[in-house]
C-alpha cells in the first residue's frame, strides 16, 4: 500500500464524513434545543435529494441545475419542517418526550409514503456538470472533483453554525435554551419561536445533506433508513446536542470506514459500528460534553 493511495482514501473518507456531519449536525441541533430526537430527519434528507432532482431536471443545464438544487432544495425542506412544526409539533412541547418522539415517527411514516406518491418508485439521478465530473489531482493525490467540493462544504457549514449560534442574537438564545430553557423563558423570550427556528435550521441541514449527496448516488426510496441510524449513532458518540460532537462523530465514522476498506475490505462495514461501541463503552455520554 503506497502512501498516496492511503492519503487519497482518507480524503474520500473525509468527504463522506462531511455529508454525515451536515445531516447529524441538524439532528444534534434539534436534539439540543428541543430535546427531541427527530426520527423523520432521515426522511427530510431523502426529500432534499428528491427535490434537488426535480429542480435540476427542471433547470436542464447541469451547472445551473446543480447550483439551483443545492440552493433551493434545503429551503423547500426547511419549509416542510416549518409547516410541520407550526401546525403540529408546536402544540406538543408541553407533552412528554415519548409523545414527541412518537409524533416524529408518525411524520416519518407519512412522509415516506408522500415521497412515493410524488416521485414514484423509479431510481433518479442527477448528472453533475462537466467541471465536477471525473477526478482532480493535486500533490499526487487523486480525488473525485465532486468529493473535493464536499470536503469544502463541511467546514463551511461548521463555521456557519458557529457564527449562527455565537454571533446572532437568536442563535445565542437557541444555544442558551439548549442549556437551560427555563432560564430563557424567565428572561421573557418567546421560547416557542426559538424552538421553531431551531427546528427549521435542523431541517434545512437535513435537506442540504440530501441535496449535496444527490449527485453522487441513486436517489431512491429507502435512502432515509441508512442515514438516520448513522446520524443517531454519530450524535450519541459525539455527545447529544453538541454540534462539535457531531463533527467528531462523523469524522470517526467516515475515517474508520475508509481505513477499514484498506485494511480489511471484507468487513469494512463493521468498523464504524465497532468504533461506536468502543466509544460508548468507554464514555457512555459521548466524546464531547453533552449539552444536557
Amino acid at each position, binding site marked *: 500500500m503506497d502512501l498516496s493511495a492511503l492519503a487519497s482514501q482518507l480524503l474520500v473518507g473525509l468527504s463522506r464524513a462531511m455529508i454525515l456531519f451536515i445531516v447529524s449536525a441538524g439532528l444534534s441541533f434539534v436534539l439540543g434545543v428541543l*430535546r427531541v*430526537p427527530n*426520527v423523520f430527519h432521515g426522511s427530510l434528507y431523502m426529500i432534499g435529494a428528491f427535490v434537488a432532482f426535480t429542480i435540476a431536471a427542471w433547470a436542464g443545464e447541469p451547472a445551473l441545475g446543480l447550483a439551483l438544487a443545492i440552493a433551493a432544495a434545503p429551503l423547500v425542506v426547511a419549509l416542510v419542517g416549518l409547516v410541520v412544526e407550526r401546525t*403540529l409539533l408546536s*402544540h*406538543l412541547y408541553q*407533552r412528554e*418526550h*415519548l*409523545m414527541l*418522539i*412518537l*409524533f416524529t*415517527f*408518525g*411524520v*416519518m*411514516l*407519512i412522509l*415516506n*409514503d*408522500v415521497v*412515493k*406518491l410524488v416521485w414514484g418508485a423509479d431510481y433518479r439521478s442527477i448528472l453533475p456538470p462537466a467541471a465536477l465530473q471525473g477526478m482532480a489531482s493535486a500533490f499526487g493525490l487523486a480525488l473525485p472533483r465532486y468529493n473535493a467540493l464536499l470536503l469544502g462544504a463541511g467546514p463551511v457549514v461548521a463555521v456557519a453554525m458557529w457564527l449562527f449560534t455565537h454571533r446572532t442574537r437568536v442563535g445565542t438564545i437557541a444555544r442558551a435554551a439548549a442549556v437551560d430553557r427555563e432560564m430563557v423563558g424567565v428572561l421573557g423570550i418567546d421560547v416557542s419561536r426559538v424552538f421553531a427556528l431551531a427546528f427549521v435550521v435542523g431541517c434545512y441541514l437535513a435537506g442540504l445533506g440530501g441535496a449535496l449527496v444527490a449527485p453522487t448516488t441513486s436517489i431512491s426510496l429507502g435512502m432515509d*433508513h441508512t442515514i438516520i*441510524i448513522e446520524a*443517531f*449513532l454519530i*450524535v*450519541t*458518540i459525539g455527545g*447529544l446536542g453538541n454540534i462539535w460532537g457531531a463533527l467528531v462523530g462523523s469524522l470517526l465514522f467516515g475515517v474508520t470506514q475508509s481505513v477499514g476498506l484498506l485494511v480489511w475490505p471484507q*468487513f469494512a*462495514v*463493521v468498523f464504524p*459500528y465497532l468504533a*461506536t*461501541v468502543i466509544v*460508548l*463503552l468507554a464514555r*457512555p*455520554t459521548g466524546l464531547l460534553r*453533552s449539552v444536557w
Partner: protein
Amino acid sequence: MTVPVRRPARASAGAAVALLAALALFPVVGPAFAVYVLALILVTGLLALSLNLVLGYGGLYQFHHAVFYGVGAYTLAVAVTRGGWPAWLGFLAGPLAAALAGLLIGWFCVRLTRLYFGMLQISLGSLLWIVVLRWYPVTGGDNGIHDIPLPAVLQSVVGAYYLILAVVALSAGVLYLIVRSPFGITLQAIRDNAQRCQTVGVDVRAHQIGAIVIAAFFAGTAGVLYVALERSVFPNLLFWVLSLEIFVMCLLGGWFTFAGPMLGAALMVALRTVIGRYTDLWTMFVGIILILLIFFMPEGVAGTALARLRARGAGAGGRG
C-alpha cells in the same frame, strides 16, 4: 403517570377466564386465517406487554425493545438449524439469551437517564442488528433462516396457535403478578420519584436492570413463539422500526393499563391486515392514526375507555 394498584377483582378474573375460553375454542369455529391472525396478535401482544413493564411501569425509555424479540427468535433458529439442538432446548434458550442480552444492554443503559438511556440503547441494539445482518454463516444475513425444523405438531397453524395461547396466557399472568408484586410496586415508585426511592435505600439501578431483564425474557419468549408460528427469522425482527411500532402499540392501547398494549397490538395487526388489502400506503395510515392518537387520545384506546367508564361508574355510584 400513576397506575392505580388494585387487587385483582373477581369480575376481572371471570372476564379473563371467559376470554381464555373464547380464545381456546376459537380454532374450532374460526377460519384458518383468522386463527393465524389471532396467533400473530398474541405473539405481538406479548411483545408489547413486555415492553410496557419497562416503559409504562418502569418509566424507562426502552427505545430498542425489538432487539430482545429478535435475540429470542434467532437463538431458537440458530440453535436448531446450526447447532442441531432439540427444539424444546431452543425454546428455553431463546428467552434466556434475550434475558442475557437484556442484562448486558441494561447494565450499560441504566447508568444514564431518560433520552440518553434510549439513545444508548438504540446504538447498542443497532450493533446487534448489524452483527445479525453481517454474520452470514450463522444468521443467514439479510436472508434470515427459513424452514426451521420444529416438532410436527407446530406445523399446523392450529398447533402453533395452542402453544402460543398457552405460553402467552401464562406469561401475561406472570407479568401481571410481577406488576402487583413488591418488586413491581417499587418499580412504579422509582418511575414516579427515583430520588426519593434512592434516599429510602432502594437500589434503583438494580430494580431497573431487573425490570429490563424480565422484559427482555418475555420479549424473547414472544420471539420464540414467532418462530413457532412462522418457522422463519429475519433481521427485521431486530430493526429499530419494529421497536417504534411496538411503542405505537403501547400508545394505541394505552400504556397506563396492564392489558392496553395487548389491545394495541390487536388493533395494529388487524389494521395492517385490513388496510393492506386495499392500499400499499398503509404506513401513511398508521402515521395518521398515530398523530391523531397523540393529539386526541394520548392515553390510548384502553386508557380513554377506562377513563370514560370510571367517570360513568362514579356517576352511577360504582357497580364494580
